[in-house]
């Protein structure tokens, strides 16, 4: 599950890339300690239906259906991850399968093993050779902000995609296995 935790992580703290015009909250300059971000993990046998939100990076190896809202954090859908949900994150990386629209504040990466069926909205989008995508890509700088304010994609962009993305969250060896918080009123988790 954790074959290449750090080598492929897309610089979660880097601010060199063109930030979205609506850059959410400014972050303090990261110290070496702070840069070791903790990652919540949804294990391969975990299935979640509902809405996920929180303040930690997230690695999904299991199944998620509903909505994933971690706008300030990085989300990775691992190779065994299966997501049927709209996902909001800072850097979203997909190695597994996603059916839903992806909104990345900084970047979205669809890895070679990834398959996305849905629309992608992010200032920077990267598709690795071999990845699968069926849907639209919107790299308009204010695209994510616009999508948020409209609560949906632009009319010409009908959401569907199937590809995988892997976020650049660093895998902490002691990462907890379900730190993402699920909204109690709207989600149920079952193992």
């Amino acid at each position, binding site marked *: 599950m954790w074959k290449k935790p750090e080598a492929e992580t897309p610089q979660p703290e880097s601010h060199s890339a063109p930030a979205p015009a609506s850059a959410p909250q400014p972050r303090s300059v990261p110290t070496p300690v702070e840069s070791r971000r903790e990652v919540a993990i949804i294990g391969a046998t975990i299935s979640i239906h509902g809405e996920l939100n929180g303040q930690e990076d997230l690695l999904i190896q299991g199944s998620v259906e509903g909505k994933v809202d971690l706008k300030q954090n990085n989300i990775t859908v691992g190779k065994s991850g299966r997501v049927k949900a709209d996902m909001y994150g800072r850097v979203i990386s997909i190695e597994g399968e996603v059916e839903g629209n992806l909104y990345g504040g900084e970047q979205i990466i669809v890895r070679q093993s990834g398959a996305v069926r849905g629309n992608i909205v992010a200032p920077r989008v990267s598709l690795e050779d071999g990845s699968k995508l069926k849907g639209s890509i919107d790299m308009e700088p204010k695209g994510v902000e616009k999508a948020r304010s409209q609560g949906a994609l632009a009319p010409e962009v*009908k959401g569907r995609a199937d590809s995988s993305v892997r976020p650049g969250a660093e895998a902490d060896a002691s990462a907890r296995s379900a730190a993402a918080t699920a909204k109690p009123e709207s989600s149920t988790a079952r193992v």
Partner: protein
Amino acid sequence: MDWPSARSAKPAPPRAASAERHAERHRSLALKALLQELPEDRSSKVLDLGSASGRNLEFLSQFACKIQIEDLYASLPTADGEAPVGPPPFGRLLGFSEAARFDVILLWDLLDYLDHDSIRALVAHLARFCRPGSLLLAFSSNQKEIPEQPIRFRFVDSETLEYDVASSRLRPGPRYVPRDIAHMFAGFRVQNSYLLKNGIQEYVFARE
């Protein structure tokens, strides 16, 4: 991946070609002509009916910040089971919203993998999502045999494409002639057409 009913009648069984895989380059005059028409403000909306490619995305992002990728051939009904009758259901396969409008459509060499009726149906469907002046890039081979599946072209620069010649199996080519193709593209006019030495006829169509 096969679409028997959509293809030219009675394709001969595919035969194996050489087993090695290598990349070849294709100098495309039509691509050059098309790109020269695009504004530099990244305002164009592109519909790519080929498969997803990181290099193509990177290249196209110079001209467009909205790109729709469809991989149409992979979406066509397969030959498994009962063969479908008539053209593929493009309205379902390419289910754009009514408000969608594209400035550029990359059809690549898909024409050679569809029969007349299917091409007409596809063109009619695409025409609904074009503005007057929208451009469509298409290739067609006049060779007797073509690769079993559409070629995955990758951009190298504004007039060069690259593609892998896999250990491909070959199939008979439909060998559409320019006059037939022009008739099948109702609502479009041929803006540029080039016959290359390798037998590829390139087209840039413009929506009327």
